[in-house]
């Protein structure tokens, strides 16, 4: 035991020395990495770490942070009714728009894949435009406007589906469906582009070989050839979808108001925004951020392990 332990330590030491020598030889690499690494550390890693630290403190910017242990988390889960609403809403949005948006992105990328080039270009622009068009989603505020001048109301009244205008964006019952529609509209984002490009890159010979091997229809082709060779893009698209599905903030704030009626459109991120930038309870807001971050990482791990099984 002792002998093997010594050997193990020696091995570790050698490894380390080998690594160190290599690092010294490749100094210039670190030089290249340095500017990015500093900025990345300062504005992405450090914030996550300080956020975790502040989540254990009471901090209102004016006074120095005061360590209060798990109190923030306890309040968050046991006392903050609004947070539970926010969690519920976020999960409803994420569970519906995440997978549907992801699958639709792939499906439409697949459909447009065999169109002639010029038509494909138009289709890509059309499908991708909503997610790139800045805050164009505010136009939905006019479509779903609560009075008779709102387009949906006018349309439905015209055909006699409803008698009077529906307050789409103020009625707690209709806010969520409206938000989900708008978020789905914006869901063909970076992942969609990645899928379009990935599908173009699948080797055509594989399809011919598959045909000879007895693949009968497009669905089999999709499952046995296309999906397995697209796995890296699928993983990337999943990361993007998760990020988008959990970080819903601008859409509810712009459409349903801030705060929304009965907190019906409150999501985790709007809750975080409320505590961080309206009430300046940074400690509490950090706890919310930490929870969101952990949930996203877990989700990502789960989905990655699921996607690895595709087509095998």
């Amino acid at each position, binding site marked *: 035991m002792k002998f093997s332990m010594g050997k193990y330590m020696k091995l570790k030491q050698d490894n380390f020395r080998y690594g160190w020598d290599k690092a010294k030889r490749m100094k210039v*690499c670190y030089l290249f990495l340095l500017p990015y690494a500093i900025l990345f550390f300062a504005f992405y890693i450090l914030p996550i770490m300080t956020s975790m630290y502040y989540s254990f403190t009471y901090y209102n910017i004016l006074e120095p942070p005061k360590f209060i242990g798990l109190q923030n988390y306890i309040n968050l889960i046991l006392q903050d009714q609004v947070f539970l609403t926010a969690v519920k809403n976020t999960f409803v949005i994420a569970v519906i728009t995440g997978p549907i948006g992801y699958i639709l992105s792939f499906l439409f990328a697949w459909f447009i894949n065999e169109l002639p080039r010029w038509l494909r270009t138009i289709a890509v622009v059309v499908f991708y435009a909503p997610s790139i068009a800045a805050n164009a989603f505010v136009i939905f505020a006019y479509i779903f406007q609560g009075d008779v001048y709102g387009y949906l109301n006018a349309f439905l009244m015209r055909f006699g589906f409803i008698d009077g205008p529906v307050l789409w964006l103020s009625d707690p019952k209709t806010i969520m469906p409206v938000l989900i529609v708008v978020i789905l509209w914006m869901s063909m984002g970076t992942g969609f582009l990645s899928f379009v490009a990935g599908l*173009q890159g699948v080797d055509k010979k594989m399809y011919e070989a598959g045909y000879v091997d007895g693949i009968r229809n497009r669905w089999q082709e999709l499952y046995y050839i296309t999906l397995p060779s697209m796995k890296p893009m699928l993983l990337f698209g999943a990361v993007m979808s998760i990020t988008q599905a959990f970080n819903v903030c601008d859409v509810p704030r712009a459409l349903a108001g801030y705060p929304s009626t009965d907190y019906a459109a409150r999501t985790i991120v709007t809750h975080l925004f409320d505590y961080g930038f309206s009430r300046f309870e940074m400690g509490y807001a950090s706890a919310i951020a930490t929870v969101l971050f952990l949930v996203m990482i877990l989700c990502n791990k789960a989905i990655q392990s699921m996607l690895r099984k595709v087509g095998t």
Partner: protein
Amino acid sequence: MSAKYGNKSIAPVDTVVIEQPQKLSRGRFAVVALIVAALLAAVIVAAGLRMDALDAMMLQVEEGALEQEALPADAPYLVFYRVGRALAIGVLAVFAIYAIIRIIDPKRRRPNRSVWGDIGVYLLLAIVAVAMVFPLVFSVAASLKPLDELFRFPPRVFPQHVTLDNYSDLFVTLSQSWVPFSRYLVNTVLITFVGTAGHLVVASMAAFVLAKYDFPGGRLFFSIVVTALMFSGYVTGIPNYIIMSRLKMIDTHWAVILPAFAAPIGLFLMKQFMEGIPTALIEAAHIDGAGEFRIFWTIIMPVVKPAWLTMIIFSVQNLWNANAATVIYSESKKTLVYALQQIQAGGVARQGQAAAVTVIIMLVPIAIFIASQNQILETMASSGLKD
């Protein structure tokens, strides 16, 4: 029967029975298609004529020249004519697209969809495409409407008297604001330009060594960056605010620009793209005596131009839309989007101007995307995440 694949003739495979789906013959399909197209065209013309007639009568009623009771029985169903005509036009368009596809690209690969499957797919595509584009077209249409049409009941999607009033009103409103409009524009352009340029250089340098050299810590660093793809600006927003205030950068443009330099998505895409560059190119340059920096600047950077454009579009999209209200407080340093959002929040009276604003903000990223669409797709082809 011997199938041809590429140039090679392959002997038939006995064990695999390839079922040919039952198809309409080409001639019969053409006849059916022509009949359907003719029917649709008839529907479009008839509905259009009837709509015009009814519209004229409605106008007479509004002017008082005609009694309400004198309207024909189908007057209340005018909307059905409209919807019907729109649907017919849509279906006809799909047919046209399909015909064009068949003419341009008659050799379809196997296994093939049935003809009806194809039409179903294209119909679905067309419907969803219209749904995707409708709100954008709608905002353009709303921005071109005069005031009386904005508050018309029932509202119409397309303006009847196109006017640019909303845009000129917008400039009047903006010129009356506390800070001149050009100031907001300069701020945003400055932030976008500096942020994107810095991001391009800093992230490409890091991507180069991560993609092409195997050095201790490189892989770990990259996996952290991949995880950071999931950090949204909101999660890091609060601590970022604190860090910025420690660095005395609150209320300066650097508070927006510096985090954009290190945006993970740019590094990620650049690194994945650079992995496709042959290592032999770098080795040859080494042998010729070029230093790392020279290799990076004169050999690698020109090769990865498509990836530049992709980084630019993501960075511009991010910075152009930054309202930065949480880190910039002086009015004279605020961004265009912030100013425009104030107008959008102006309520009912500013509805037309708000639509004009929306159009202005969305045009820039969409235009850049359309212009660089090819290169972006080329870059995205290497965007995959390997495990």
